[in-house]
């Protein structure tokens, strides 16, 4: 595609995208009224906006958001590092992978969010059970992608390095590690959105801080606008986490042809 055709496409796409946004916001503002939906079921946009300002001033919205962001970051980083390390170790040791794969599969099938009540029993109403759920949920996509990538390294490439008398460490750092980067980032992208899910479920189950807590608080008060504000804020947090991964990916995988990176996002 020529540069000009591409920039025309981007311009038209951006306009269309903006039109969709305006239509959506307008439908949110006036749709419920036109359809006779009461505001405690779907509060119009302006009411949610007013609630946002109110929550900011009186319900510590910023504090709750900050707590959730910190938990998401901690869970995502620890879960990713752990997943990558285990992925490399299992990838390099076929015996370990063979021995552990049934248990890993079982743990992968078990819905990780179901562990949230258990972790709260263990660690109380602190931030730790939320972080732990996020770690567990982020761990698998990263580990599986890294493991598959290490397993898939071209043996001829390893032989080439061996013929140059490469040490085991050189083979890892010069071949296996860089080869695993694109699949690892695919795992991190999935992980970044799942981390938010893990943290929110933890907050829903127990505690008195975070956007998940604000959700249950709003529900208890039948404060539908507050529930909407919490959902919007959670979406923003998840979106920023995802965007951060995409930006890191673009920096690290700059050598790939542009098309094989994450499209528009």
């Amino acid at each position, binding site marked *: 595609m020529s540069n000009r055709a591409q920039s025309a496409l981007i311009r038209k796409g951006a306009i269309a995208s903006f039109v969709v946004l305006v239509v959506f916001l307008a439908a949110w503002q006036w749709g419920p009224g036109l359809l006779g939906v009461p505001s405690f079921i779907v509060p119009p946009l302006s009411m949610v906006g007013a609630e946002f300002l109110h929550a900011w001033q009186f319900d510590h919205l910023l504090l709750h958001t900050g707590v959730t962001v910190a938990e998401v970051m901690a869970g995502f980083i620890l879960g990713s590092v752990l997943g990558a390390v285990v992925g490399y170790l299992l990838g390099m040791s076929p015996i370990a992978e063979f021995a552990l794969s049934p248990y890993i599969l079982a743990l992968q099938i078990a819905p990780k969010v179901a562990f949230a009540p258990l972790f709260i029993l263990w660690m109380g109403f602190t931030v730790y059970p939320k972080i732990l759920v996020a770690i567990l949920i982020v761990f698998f996509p990263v580990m599986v992608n890294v493991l598959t990538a290490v397993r898939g390294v*071209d043996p*001829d*490439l390893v*032989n*080439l*390095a*061996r*013929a*140059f*008398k*490469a040490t085991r460490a*050189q083979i890892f750092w*010069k*071949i296996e590690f*860089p080869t695993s*980067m694109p699949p690892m980032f695919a795992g991190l992208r999935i992980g970044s959105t799942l981390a938010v899910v893990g943290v929110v479920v933890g907050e829903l189950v127990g505690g008195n801080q975070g956007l998940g807590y604000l959700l249950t608080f709003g529900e208890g008060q039948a404060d539908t606008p507050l529930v909407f504000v919490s959902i919007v804020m959670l979406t923003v947090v998840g979106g920023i986490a995802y965007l951060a991964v995409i930006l890191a990916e673009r920096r690290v*995988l700059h*050598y*790939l*042809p542009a098309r094989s990176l994450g499209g528009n996002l």
Partner: protein
Amino acid sequence: MVVDLPMSNVVRLEYRNVTMRFAKTGSEGVLTAVQGVSFSVRDGEVVSLIGPSGCGKSTLLNIGSGLTQPTEGAAFVDGERVEGANAHVAFMLQKDLLLPWRTVAENVMFGVEIQNLPLAERRRRAEALLENFKLAEFAGHYPHQLSGGMRQRVALARTLAVDPHVLLLDEPFSAVDAQTRMVLQRDLALTLKEAGKTALLITHDLAEAVTLSDRVLVMSRRPGAIIDEIAIDMPQRDNPIARRHDPKLGDYVARLMDRLDIGHNSLDQQPAGGAA
């Protein structure tokens, strides 16, 4: 044109009575890939190895580079028994094996980087080789931005960067189109001659074997053994394109076809050969 100097008699690469057996997968018994192969390649000589698929040519190459140990016999480089990877031997395959996250220059430096040469020396070698292969302007490009022929030239530059005594080439040009292949053959022949490198070339292309080599060894079907050795009595080993015009080429190719049973009915009755 490079003057043909008399070949040195120093033996660079030697296979002594090499036999290779593998355990058959999924059944009892062993599979003999190579049986009692002995030959030597002198300093500065280019020898081609041809033979049917699965006759163990690539096995011989792996033994020469020290990646596999033979069941019996041994390979020797500069008179020393090959017992593991060896800094004097470098190989190049049909696949370019370029690392996509490294630039062209960084890929050329891959081998010397592993061997921990000083950075300045790595850069100097990469620059000289890229200049020589007319790739200097692509030094900062990534492999996906290059054509197949250019990628193979980068792979050849990487092989030469470690300054090996012996090059082992396993069908290095079989994945590129016919015209590019001729250009690459010319570049290779010229480079080998100018640098005085010793090379063992595995190929399926009979004309390539004749135009690039001093000698051609013919291997039998599995278990692979050397059944013929043909000295190529043609001038200008550094110019395979000129050799293509030599009327003797047809005779050599015909003789190789005969030795390989190509064109005989017997070929059709042979069981299909396995992977090399």
